[in-house]
């Protein structure tokens, strides 16, 4: 089977929490979607899985900016991750996976690689 790409609708604008994150379940596993209304772009999507512990918690971290980069702090051991690049600020070797995300009307769509799927979402 060949891997394909789909823009999945993961939630609506009403589900988002300004300045914070929510977790969604996608074909690629758990993803954290952040809505930072005072920035452009305002939407970010990264893996919900904290790379240091393997636990699904990143959407519940505190967001903000450090040296101009948009970041989320892991709620478990407080490492910071750049929301655009996924880079961990405390450890060069560690990154979280990032996903393209966009607003389509009222729907939030995240671009995830999908496997074993007959057709992409229309």
């Amino acid at each position: 089977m060949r891997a394909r790409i789909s823009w999945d609708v993961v939630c609506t604008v009403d589900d988002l929490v300004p300045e914070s994150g929510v977790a969604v379940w996608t074909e690629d596993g758990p993803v954290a979607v952040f809505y930072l209304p005072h920035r452009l772009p305002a939407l970010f999507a990264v893996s919900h899985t904290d790379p240091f512990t393997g636990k699904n918690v990143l959407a519940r971290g505190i967001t903000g900016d450090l040296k101009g980069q948009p970041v989320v702090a892991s709620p478990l051991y407080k490492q910071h991750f750049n929301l655009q690049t996924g880079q961990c600020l405390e450890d060069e070797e560690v990154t979280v996976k990032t996903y393209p995300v966009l607003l389509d009307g009222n729907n939030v769509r995240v671009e995830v690689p999908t496997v074993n799927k007959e057709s992409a979402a229309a």
Partner: protein
Amino acid sequence: MSKKTLIVIGNGMVGHHFLEQLAATPAAADFEIKVFGEEKLLAYDRVHLSEYFSGSTHADLAMGTADWYAENHIDLCLGEQVTGIDRDKQTITTPMGDYGYDELVLATGSYPFVPPIKGNEHPNCLVYRTLEDLDSIRASADGVKTGVVVGGGLLGLEAANALKSLGLEAHVVEFAPRLMPVQLDTDGGALLKHKIEELGVQVHTEKATTEIVEGEDARLRMNFSDDSHLETDLIVFSAGIRPQDALARSCDLAIGERGGIVINDQCTTSDPHIHAIGECALWSEKIFGLVAPGYTMARTLASVLNGDQEAAFTGADMSTKLKLLGVDVGSIGDAHATTPGARNIRFNDEQAGHYRRMVISEDGKTLLGAILVGDNSHYDTLLQYALNGIELPEQPETLILPESQGGAPALGPDALPETASICSCHNVSKGDICGVIDAGCSDLGSVKAETKASTGCGGCAALLKNVVDSELEKRGVEVSKDICEHFPYSRQDLFNIVKVNGIRTFRTLIREHGKGHGCDICKPAVASILATCWNEHILATDHVPLQDTNDTFMANMQKNGTYSIVPRIPGGEITPDKLIVLGEVAKEYNLYTKITGGQRVDLFGATLSELPDIWEKLIAAGFETGHAYGKSLRTVKSCVGNTWCRYGVQDSVGMAITLENRYKGLRAPHKVKMAVSGCTRECAEAQSKDFGVIATENGWNLYVCGNGGMRPRHGDLFATDLSDEELIRTIDRVVMFYVRTADRLQRTSVWMENLEGGLDYLKQVVLEDSLGICDELEQHMADLVGTYQCEWKTAVEDPEKRKRFREFVNAPSKKDPVQQWTTERDQRRPLVEGEPA
């Protein structure tokens, strides 16, 4: 080269300090070292002996460890009294045998003097010098009412405080016409007596005891020469100390006329191979009954044995600053103006209970001595003038006048010469401090670690901080208090900005007073400030993103991403029905159940989406949130108190519940813990809490700023015998002052240590209202208490807020696949990584 043998007799404070000093020199390698101690316990801090009654153990007070002795190859023989010295054969004798020496050090300290009064051999006549003495006093005080201390000096008053803390009615009997005749004058002594009597210790001056006989209402009766008498159950003699020179006498070393082993500037006795240090030694016809001079002798002798020809003991300053039964007393230099031509300046405020006296030289240029009672805040400055001979200002009286009457501000650290002694316990001068700062120390902590300054009696802490701050500043080290890169302010600054400008959201604050978007440092700090100022629900839309996950979801995140739930159980009191509900809920959701250290029940392993359902059930059964997740009041621990306990004197559970219900939910810079004990036995361990309350016959004693954790600290006695209302008012004020002025994540202990003026300052603010803000603090607290809501109740009732608890917003029934479980001791727990399911 074969090693020489060095024997030290006496394992007390000075003996131990000597070994520490010697071990740090190359000479240590030349000696086979043996130490004999008559006491069974390793050297301990006698200066803080009384803390043994407030919960410290020998381990807390110990100066070193057996391991340290072993690592330094020092042979430590405890419980082995040396009974003889043979100077010709160079041997000493103990009940276990004879030992040869090349060099011998006597560090035998002193023993309490018991006046030759008929009847003083009664088993309930005791002394106050060793931990064993304190055990005897405790045993003797068990179940009785009254205790008398004979002797109104420094130690006597400390002993009286100890009797009081054991729940006895305490008396002090002094022969002289005033208390502390050595250190104080008539006015000072009278004020001290007044203050101490206010605290419930009765003072009898000018009383000569003629005999001690069987009592009628108590065990003993003391008859006085004026035909009066006093009944008491036990007597503690504290009528001065005598140098322990028995061994030296028996081998004919030179002894002073009134006792003490004569030493020269090198701390060597009349025998060149025998040395003496500490309280047993007599230098220039003086005995030094304080620990600092003993340490100086110990350092001198260590240098001498290390071959330093120059090392010499040249006397020591005997100035003292202490707190006796909570009353400040200070005595500096020539307090009694015995220097010819000396003149006095006195300031006596009977209203406030402050007495200050300066003794100045005939030409008015130098300070010779001083006496302070009731307020030691002038001590450091006066001591520096006296010790360093700094020229007095034109109008010297400004040094002791209150600032409102034209008093001069404290002597700035800049005015001190390099040689000024900052810490006398460890002999650290201002020059030493500059030295380590130049060598790279850049904060108070490292200066302390490097020089040991302020790690002895602690009396120099405030001065040390001033010197370090000012020296760092001079070197251009900016002591930054900025909370993070987004705000150029400290937490306290931000608090004031929010309060004064009526700011209600983080957005407004950062837009007007900061930059960027915030981070996980400033957001929770501001959330806490906003909560204190306006007490809005923490899940109000604007506040949600500011909080740490624990605050956001009102539960504590555990290592696998699930949460624990801790319902409030005020004072640890719970009905069987409620206990059953906890059990049922835990069973239904398969929650691991454990009793916490704060007398409540913790339920572990709830997923995010289960939290509101669980809370719905708990709230229906009458539970409220326990704020275990918040920087706020945790629990008020209590013992069972006089409702059940045979010893209890107040209802500790009732008070704990009152306090817990009053302060629950209050947001603070860090967590706050409290406890209430029903009597002096302190079963609730209240002194290890931020606020510790201990019942007395007459009310409550309040201890503040204690904590457990990584760096445990006992609380400081703040106020005594408070009524219920006074207790609550006092706690209201301290809590509110803390909430308003502390730094982010600063617990009460560190906050208090960092307040300029420390505990004394805090007392002035809270008990004397020196800033005139007490009304405001109380009002603020009343507002907060009035607007309390159970956050969980508000959350489960609001469908919008409940939405936040969806684990995956697009898949409500999806279970997080990484949470895997196993069973241990009949309960569910998370699987450890790599462990088979």
